């Protein structure tokens, strides 16, 4: 009897949080598929096959042998999507994580510390923001060279400021609230106030920003690949696939559309997951559903 009750609770939980579940499932599917790429496809994502160039997807003029078609070197697109997913997802996750941590820490330090620290940090942020990301990327890569680590660094560099500024704005709002002053007067230390009162209130925007940023990172990776600053050929990444498909949009649109839709799927999943998480974590919002 207990077991049946548990199963029922789990099902209802899933139904009560549809957005998060759908998002999680979508993301999970993509991640799992990428991880298990060799089991799903037997094609080599790197080896060219000249006679198979530019085959359309199955159902649009192509054969079942290549479900999503082949690219300009005859390589199976599904295989490249899956293997490329490993690269793109890993890069995006690492970049978002680093940008988030750095951004939140810096934002908190700036807004809580106030005064000089705040001024200096915000100036640095302003100066960096005044530079187009692309120029920073070109400069960094030109000096340091292309490598996945450089790429993650550049991506993270492009993202931390949004966290910092939003956190800062929130903190400055919250800081004036009575219960914060009350806690301080009662002798709570700064750190304690930050951790118990301030930080939990910033989780929601962080999650939303984070899920948005995930998409940005994947797309930024594609932008950097255009400029030759991303993952080097012949290794696939969604970004480099987009770049290579750019010149074929008029006659072989599936080259760029496949990675584009994949990115869209991942972004959708990330956003739904982020929304769902926010709903879950922010108690004030739970009542709206009920």
């Amino acid at each position, binding site marked *: 009897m207990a077991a049946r009750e548990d199963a029922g609770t789990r099902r209802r939980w899933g139904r009560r949080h549809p957005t998060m579940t759908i998002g999680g499932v979508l993301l999970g599917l993509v991640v799992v598929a990428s991880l298990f790429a060799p089991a799903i496809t037997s094609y080599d994502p*790197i080896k060219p096959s*000249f*006679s198979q160039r530019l085959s359309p997807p199955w159902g649009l003029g192509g054969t079942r042998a290549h479900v999503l078609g082949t690219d*300009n070197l005859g390589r199976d697109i599904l295989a490249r999507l899956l293997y490329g997913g490993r690269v793109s997802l890993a890069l995006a996750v690492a970049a978002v994580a680093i940008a988030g941590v750095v951004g939140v820490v810096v934002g908190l330090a700036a807004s809580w510390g106030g005064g000089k620290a705040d001024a200096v940090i915000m100036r640095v942020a302003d100066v960096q923001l005044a530079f187009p990301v692309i120029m920073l990327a070109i400069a960094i890569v030109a000096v340091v060279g*292309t490598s996945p680590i450089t790429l993650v660094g550049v991506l993270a560099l492009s993202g931390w400021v949004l966290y910092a500024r939003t956190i800062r704005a929130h903190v400055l709002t919250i800081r004036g609230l009575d219960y914060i002053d009350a806690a301080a007067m009662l002798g709570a230390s700064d750190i304690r106030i930050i951790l118990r009162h301030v930080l939990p209130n910033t989780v929601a925007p962080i999650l939303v920003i984070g899920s948005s940023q995930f998409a940005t990172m994947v797309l930024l990776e594609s932008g950097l690949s255009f400029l*030759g600053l991303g993952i080097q050929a012949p290794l696939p990444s969604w970004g480099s696939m987009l770049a290579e498909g750019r010149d074929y949009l*008029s*006659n072989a649109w599936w080259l760029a559309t496949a990675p584009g839709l994949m990115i869209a799927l991942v972004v959708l999943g990330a956003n739904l997951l982020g929304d769902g998480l926010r709903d879950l974590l922010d108690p004030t919002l739970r009542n709206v559903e009920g």
Partner: protein
Amino acid sequence: MREQHPRPDHIGRRDFLAVSGAALALAGAPSLAAGQAKRSGEIAAGLSERMLTLDPANHYSISTTSVLRHLFDPLIDVTNDSKFVPALAETWRPVNNTTWRFTLRKGVTFHDGTPFNADSVVFTLRRVQSNSKLIKSFVYQDIESVEKDGDYGVIVTSKRPFGSLPAHLTMLGMLPPGAGKNEEAFFQKPIGTGPFRFASWTHGDQIAMTANPTYWKPGIPKVEKVTFRFIPELSTRTAALRAGELQVIDRVTPDLVETLKGTRGVKVLDVPAIEAQRWIFQLGREPVKDPRLRQAISLAIDRGVIIKELLRGYGRPVDSPVPPGLIGHMSLPPKVYDPEKARQILKQAGYSNVSVDIVLMKDFYPKQLEITQAVAAMLGDVGIKLNIKNLEIASAREQRTAGTYDLFFSGWAHMPHDPDWYFGQWFTKAGSEKLTRYTNPKVEQLIAEGRVPDPKVRQAKYEELERIVWDEDAEIWLYYTVAIYGVSDRLRNFEARRDYYVLLSDVSIV
């Protein structure tokens, strides 16, 4: 619902009908002189390379040369089969190995009415030779003096033999001497003797020109207005052609040929170009310093598959470092595809698991990344690992200068239809010291001897040196390119040129 914005063809057709109608109505009245232009219509062309300057002496871009040809005339023109024909110069003769004598065409005026004569030539040549801030200046450093020989003659002497001078002069438009007074102002509204007059231009975006009614060639130009738009993005350029906004585009890739052929109102013209795609080696560096490795690399590459599959046949096998039609071209034994032999050579030379880096300049040559990946697979089959470094142009060139590369994806369009520059740059010690580090005194001597004006001597010298560099696999010559143009059916008399020029002065539109 179709045309909601004004389309040039309506204007053109109306003008054309109006003119023809008027001509018919005037039948019996004194007819227009034979060959007199019935100019009508406008042509818009889309080029892939941005034009940066209106100064013929301050750039070395094929595309810019092609555009400026409409505003300025050079002394000599070159036809599509590489024959040199008179333009502003009627004759040119080598007086001796270091002296050229030009006689000039009479009765030519600049767009502002001032006459063209030897003063213009002297000014133009002296300027490009002496002003080292001009990009073309280095080409003319061998010139020692430029002197008038009467009002319509010029004598040019050089420090050493300069047999390719006439060829280079096909790319240098003649300027009025008045340009020297205020160059910056002049080049905002330049004046030349060309078939079109300057109308307007936005830096790097587009340039518009209107017909020159007093052009010295009868019947030229055939249209009233010409606009060149610079659209590096391939898909956009082709879309504009297909939508009827442009009438001609250059640098079409082989993969788009079918799409264009399938578009109504559009056709595709192609011609083998005078350009060779090649990979160069850092000859001062291990392991590619070793000619056996270079030979193995060459044997491992299936050039036929590249041409047939990747280029869809829009490429030609290379039989000489110099493309057909140019002086110096010959028929050398073709570079075969023999992976088995490659493996043998590698084994005998003791190479196992050798790895080499190739540097590419991002987006510089069409399909370069594709071809490189294909070759990487081919080299992998014989045991050579090719690491691809696709870098932004400045970084790539920096690495080339510093010598930190093994292979470099390069190309050479043999402008100006003469190989002297090619050999002088890549196969002399001084020329290649920051490039391929090639040194071979015998070759260097032959290059120097090939500078004389006598074409027979030049051919002999070039053939001898080519045999040497071909044998030592100094470079990997992949294929000759094919120039592909997308052209509207409304154009008449457009010629697909081997040197990638898009010339519209004798093209008409219906």
